């Protein structure tokens, strides 16, 4: 509506658009640069994964992804994700509730601490758990005496993954809940609803898309984490190898087709992640 009246008013449209838009050759050149860059860095790598995966034939592909070590790696990765993601989701909601619904001293410091794992190299994220629970670590002797294995076992891999993916849900929810304020919750409480009821029926519907968004990102990183897990895993085949570590071993043994076959499964996960992300972004915008 507004645009059509605007166009009617300004008769010399040609000069107007020339002042507001770049010349055609500039537009085409910039678009070409952007698309070329994305082809070289995004599209070609993605295509090459699938090409390399099927290079030695479909048989090799299915043999690779149904190999006992590959299945064990897939299973371990799923176990880690199933533990780490819900833990960080509950934490994310709790942290966002504390940081956005109340005022208290030291809030900015707490926010920075929540963000810290993003600033730490994955290798260091693994190292810190070695220093705590490794044989020479602070709790090393005690753990050995009680026959508890953390490092080079499942608990270590879970801990490293939880550390690396800790901020994802909180980071998504905090800005969202900040803009929503506290008035709806206050209304619900003053009308007599309990705290849980208020959270369940008032807050959660408001933040659900943000929560899903955070969960997806957290999940993607948890599945694919390499550096941190590599430090604490111990690389025991069929035991403590997650999918990314399994890919590394296959690749270093020059079993390229097998490595890319497992990589192609992870790429499909990544593509599904992107699709869900797009749908969620679209849903939350239309809300």
């Amino acid at each position, binding site marked *: 509506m507004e645009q059509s009246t605007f166009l009617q008013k300004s008769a010399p449209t040609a000069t107007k658009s020339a002042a507001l838009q770049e010349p055609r050759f500039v537009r085409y050149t*910039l678009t070409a*640069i952007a698309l070329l860059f994305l082809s070289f860095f*995004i599209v070609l790598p993605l295509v090459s994964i699938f090409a390399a995966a099927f290079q030695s034939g479909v048989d090799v592909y299915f043999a690779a992804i149904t190999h006992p070590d590959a299945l064990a790696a897939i299973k371990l990765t799923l176990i880690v994700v199933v533990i780490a993601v819900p833990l960080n989701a509950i934490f994310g909601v*709790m942290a966002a509730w504390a940081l956005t619904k109340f005022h208290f001293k030291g809030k900015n410091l*707490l926010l920075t601490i929540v963000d810290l794992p993003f*600033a730490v190299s994955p290798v260091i994220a693994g190292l810190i758990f070695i220093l705590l629970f490794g044989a020479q670590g602070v709790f090393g002797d005690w753990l050995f005496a009680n026959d508890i294995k953390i490092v080079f076992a499942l608990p270590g891999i879970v801990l490293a993954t939880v550390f690396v993916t800790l901020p994802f849900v909180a980071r998504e929810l905090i800005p969202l809940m900040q803009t929503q304020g506290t008035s709806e919750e206050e209304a619900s409480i003053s009308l007599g609803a309990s*705290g849980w009821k208020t959270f369940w029926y008032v807050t959660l519907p408001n933040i659900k898309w943000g929560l899903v968004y955070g969960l997806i990102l957290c999940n993607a990183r948890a599945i694919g984490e390499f550096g941190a897990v590599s430090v604490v895993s111990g690389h025991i085949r069929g035991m403590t190898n997650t999918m990314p570590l399994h890919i*590394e071993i296959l690749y270093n043994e020059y079993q390229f087709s097998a490595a890319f076959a497992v990589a192609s499964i992870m790429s499909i996960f990544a593509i599904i992640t992107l699709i869900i992300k797009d749908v969620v972004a679209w849903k939350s915008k239309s809300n």
Partner: protein
Amino acid sequence: MSSLTINKKSRRIIPGFHLSLGYTMLYVSLLVVLPLSMIFLQTMSLSWQEFWHIITDRRVVASYKISFGTALAAGLINALFGTIIAWVLVRYQFPFKRLIDGLVDLPFALPTAVAGIALTSLYAPKGWIGQFFDFKIAFTPLGIIIALTFIGLPFVVRTVQPVLQNIQVEVEEASASLGATRWQTIWKVIFPELIPAILTGFSLAFARALGEYGSVVFIAGNMPMKTEITPLLIMTKLEQYDYAGATAIAVVMLVTSFVLLFTINIIQWLANRRFVH
């Protein structure tokens, strides 16, 4: 009980303050603060001379230069091309735009190890792209820059895109109607608005690149003094059970990351202050 007393004071009407804050504090203390403080605690066992000796070792210093140089190069490439990509995605129309927009996030979703082997096979001397160059790309610092550019790509695009979307057409119209050419409008009106976002995106990409491990180890070749990044050096020391050495280098990396994080916050604070006025 406690909610009653709070209601009497008529201050915190919303419940769950102690529960949520207590849980948050416990969680970050056990999983972030305690583990990270181990790095500094472990370093205390070293004397200052020992610490200095480790972190200024020739091989270690070479790794700083490689890590810093390649991360900086990748950050600059991303600042330039990320801005162009954001501009094209916001301003122009072309086929499959929505699909391409979605693909920009691939580096966030794709495991770094998968990215690493894919880029290595592409840019290796006989790879799809590498075969067209008569110099080596994979297994040189150039290869590291390519991996780090991939990892950092979404940061600049995703910080610049919303700012560009929020610039109102009226501002550009005003500039044009006052006689500015299109180039002047872009350079003097639009670009200054984008600078904080570009800087933030650059710093995020740079910080991520400094610590990156998974995608780089495959493409780097990992030659000491030539293509060995600092995180890999920590890994090597760990494999030799040299925990003191690994931790000392980790301290240098951590301090660098914290300084970067601090810088990013200052940039954002300055940018917000500018827009308030």
